[in-house]
């Protein structure tokens, strides 16, 4: 972990890795889109079932992003890894966008499926709270002027909000929700037919790779920005 604490080493490693990440993202997302279009309409939902290939991976990625945010915040607080707060700061807007995507695609799917754009059930409400947690985190980073202090305050906040993740995950078990229960990672095996499962899995991997690609780019940008800022201060002083 501390091997990449040196920003220069991280920049070198990530610039080598980035083309591969982009290629892998493009391949898996492309394959997911193609298979998704080729999938037959569902007997109940018709063609609207294909919103699943957009909605479910977005929601997975949003939750994974918060998990990564909490993990990097913990590393930042406990081990004072110099790049982990950069990583956390970079991850938050991405996670917020994926959450927003999940909310919007889910809402568009809910209208044909349930007859409502929004219901206040446990899964949807806790996922909406996830968006507010992201926004609060970003707001806190922007509100505190001192970079180091902002990093530590935001890290505490991120860890506090991590309590929401198991709530979102298990809300469909703990409460009577309208939202679908767990259909894939179950004891009896997935309940979805293969013709839908493959595009879903490929989209899932594709969204995850997309997140990691964008995250790497954002971390590199943040490192470059800090370098530029310190150069400017060096010139001025």
């Amino acid at each position, binding site marked *: 972990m501390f091997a990449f604490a040196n920003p220069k080493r991280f920049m070198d490693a990530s610039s080598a890795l980035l083309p591969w990440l982009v290629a892998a993202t493009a391949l898996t997302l492309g394959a997911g889109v193609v298979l998704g279009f080729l999938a037959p309409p569902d007997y109940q939902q018709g063609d609207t079932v294909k919103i699943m290939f957009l909605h479910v991976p977005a929601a997975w990625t949003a939750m994974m992003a918060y998990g990564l945010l909490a993990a990097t915040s913990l590393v930042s607080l406990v081990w004072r890894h110099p790049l982990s707060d950069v990583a956390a700061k970079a991850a938050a807007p991405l996670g917020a966008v994926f959450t927003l995507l999940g909310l919007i695609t889910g809402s568009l799917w809910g209208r044909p499926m349930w007859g409502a754009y929004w219901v206040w059930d446990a899964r949807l*409400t806790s996922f909406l709270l996830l968006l507010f947690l992201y926004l*609060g985190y970003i707001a*806190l980073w922007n*509100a505190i002027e001192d970079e180091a202090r902002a990093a530590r305050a935001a890290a505490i906040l991120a860890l506090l909000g991590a309590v929401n993740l198991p709530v979102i995950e298990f809300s469909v078990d703990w409460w009577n929700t309208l939202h679908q229960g767990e259909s894939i990672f179950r004891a009896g095996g997935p309940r979805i037919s293969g013709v839908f499962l493959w595009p879903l899995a490929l989209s899932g991997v594709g969204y995850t790779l997309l997140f990691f690609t964008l995250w790497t780019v954002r971390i590199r940008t943040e490192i470059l920005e800090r370098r530029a800022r310190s150069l400017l201060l060096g010139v001025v002083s």
Partner: protein
Amino acid sequence: MIGALLFRDIRLATRAGGSAALALAFFAAVATLVPLGVGVDLRLLLRVAAGVLWVAAVLAALLSLDRLFQSDFEDGSLDVIALSPLPLETIAAAKIAAHWLTTGLPLTFLSPVLGIMFGLPPAAIGVLTLSLAIGTPAVSALGAIGAALTMSIRRGGLILPLLVLPLLAPAVIFGAGAVQAAIDGLSSGALLFLAAFAVATTLLSPFAAGAAVRLNLAG
């Protein structure tokens, strides 16, 4: 020494420029405005009473939170208090207790009056008071974490609700849920969940708040 800190904060809050009266006035004001907005039909008010009164209580308790640490931070008294042999976590716990005693507790005492104004039956008024008594410590506790995180921000009070309200969602859900169950005449485990939430947050938040105070004092 904890007692001295506690009484200092209570005295500051109950003075003329303090926050105790403000929270009560805000609670009463919101509870007065809602019927003016949604109409005076008591049956409608009965349906919304649980949620409206709980949300109003949470917002009223939130009003004075941003100054919890900030006022001492700005004039340097927090640095002096931090020099005492008390750990920062204990200092945070004392401030949380003072905030609850001067904000949450008075709100709880005012709630039966407002419950009557919304047409709540006596059993529901009892549950409302009990749920607020159990739940407002959680509001003070979680709010104190937000207050500690934002104490160095000028106008930090604007960002505080955004940080704290998502974390307070379980308190509102279970508190209002308990009152609604009492109105409907059903039994519900909501009060137990609320109590669990309140106990967990009240006991654990001094550690988070203490960490936040430490990072702001060190900077």
